[in-house]
């Protein structure tokens, strides 16, 4: 056996990555929900998982939590299999689900007491601090909470035992700006505490761009782009073009995606800039503006390219 087997490579990588996913495959009936997904999340990272609704983000997260067993491939969390030893893995993960499934019968105070009994590391002082900061009434019943309050309650019980890994599934979906601020601040506080790691999925790309330092873009169950955010952005350029004559269509070598009408077009390049520039000279196109695209612009270019190759 040599060091180059995938398993050996995986063990080596495991040392500083609390989350490692290898060749994860999952189908639901005829639909491939996850198509050989590979992912490593290093310790201390804020990892943003981006993709459209139904792209596979939640399915992937459910595998990380051991709620789904891999059809094939492997998932390792803190070097453990979350399906084999869920209690050992989940004790170290804080999780806010997309549907914020909380016990409706409980009051906030009961929810806190109830949750604390599952986690030896529950910090009652910190829990109380969080409750006050999030302005949750201890006597309020979960069933009567607004959408935003529900999210805040879910956040409280995901944070109060200071988990080593915080997983948030679409934490901002449907929430007002104030609650979203609380959630982003929680992500920042978590990662600022030495060595803690955050994974969050979102379709709000400006939020991902603010707080994530690594991202993976998922589309139809496939990771189409992943890496440090800076690198992902540096690999792309956005050019605004003006042509002498109106065009109906534009197809350029070195361009990932072209969009526009008439004389005005914009192009996202994925690094093959020389090739693209040469083509532009040939077409007598004037570059009106050139800059780094936002994550949203990269995402749209990538996704639309995959859908309409």
């Amino acid at each position, binding site marked *: 056996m040599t060091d180059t087997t995938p398993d050996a490579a995986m063990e080596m990588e495991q040392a500083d990555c609390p989350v490692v996913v290898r060749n994860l495959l999952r189908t639901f009936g005829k639909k491939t929900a996850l198509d050989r997904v590979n992912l490593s999340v290093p310790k201390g990272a*804020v990892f943003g998982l981006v993709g459209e609704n139904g792209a596979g983000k939640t399915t992937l997260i459910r595998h990380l939590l051991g709620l789904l067993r891999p059809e094939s491939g492997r998932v390792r969390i803190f070097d453990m299999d979350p399906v084999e030893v869920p209690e050992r893995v989940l004790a170290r993960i804080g999780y806010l689900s997309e549907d914020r499934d909380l016990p409706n019968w409980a009051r906030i105070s009961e929810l806190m007491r109830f949750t604390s009994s599952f986690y030896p590391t529950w910090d009652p002082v910190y829990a109380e601090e969080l409750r006050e900061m999030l302005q949750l009434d201890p006597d309020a019943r979960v069933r009567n909470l607004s959408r935003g309050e529900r999210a805040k309650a879910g956040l409280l019980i995901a944070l109060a035992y200071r988990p080593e890994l915080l997983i948030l599934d679409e934490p901002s979906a449907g929430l007002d700006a104030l609650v979203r*601020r609380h959630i*982003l*601040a929680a992500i*920042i*506080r978590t*990662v*600022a505490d030495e060595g803690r790691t955050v994974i969050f999925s979102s379709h709000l790309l*400006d939020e991902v*761009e*603010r*707080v*994530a*330092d690594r991202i993976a873009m998922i589309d139809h169950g496939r990771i189409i782009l992943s890496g440090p955010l*800076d690198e992902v*952005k540096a690999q792309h350029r*956005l050019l605004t073009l003006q042509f002498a004559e109106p065009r109906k269509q534009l197809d350029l070598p070195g361009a990932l995606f072209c969009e526009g009408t008439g004389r005005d077009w914009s192009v996202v390049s994925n690094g093959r800039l020389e090739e693209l520039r040469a083509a532009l000279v040939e077409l007598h196109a004037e570059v009106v503006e050139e*800059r*780094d*695209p*936002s*994550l*949203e612009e990269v995402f749209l270019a990538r996704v639309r390219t995959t859908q309409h190759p």
Partner: protein
Amino acid sequence: MRIHVSPDNGVPIYMQIVSQLKYLVASGRLSPSDELPPIRTLAEQLLINPNTVARAYRELEQAGILISKRGSGTFVSDGGSPLARRERMRIVSERVDALLAEAHQLGIDTDELIQVIRKRDANMKPGPEERNSHD
């Protein structure tokens, strides 16, 4: 200290912080030996990754605008660095351009404008006698 960042304006977030802090220092709203918020505090305030703040601070330290003292925090460094002076000139030039444009639009030529500036400047500086009378 007020800083605003916007993730999607094409300028990297750390650069937005760098240029705004440069501006605050150059315009005198941050003075030498003023303390900057800790990385974590500013990250939470701006809702951005702490590494991004750290990178901006590092960049400004290398430019001689900030100085970090181990264990006690990050401060505006003493003495205007050449870069700070260049930055000050840039800010003033921008204002002058705006003033010139407006003056020309109102039919006041550059020589006349310079006279106005001298006059206003003289008015703003109290003479020694005047200062005494205030004391």
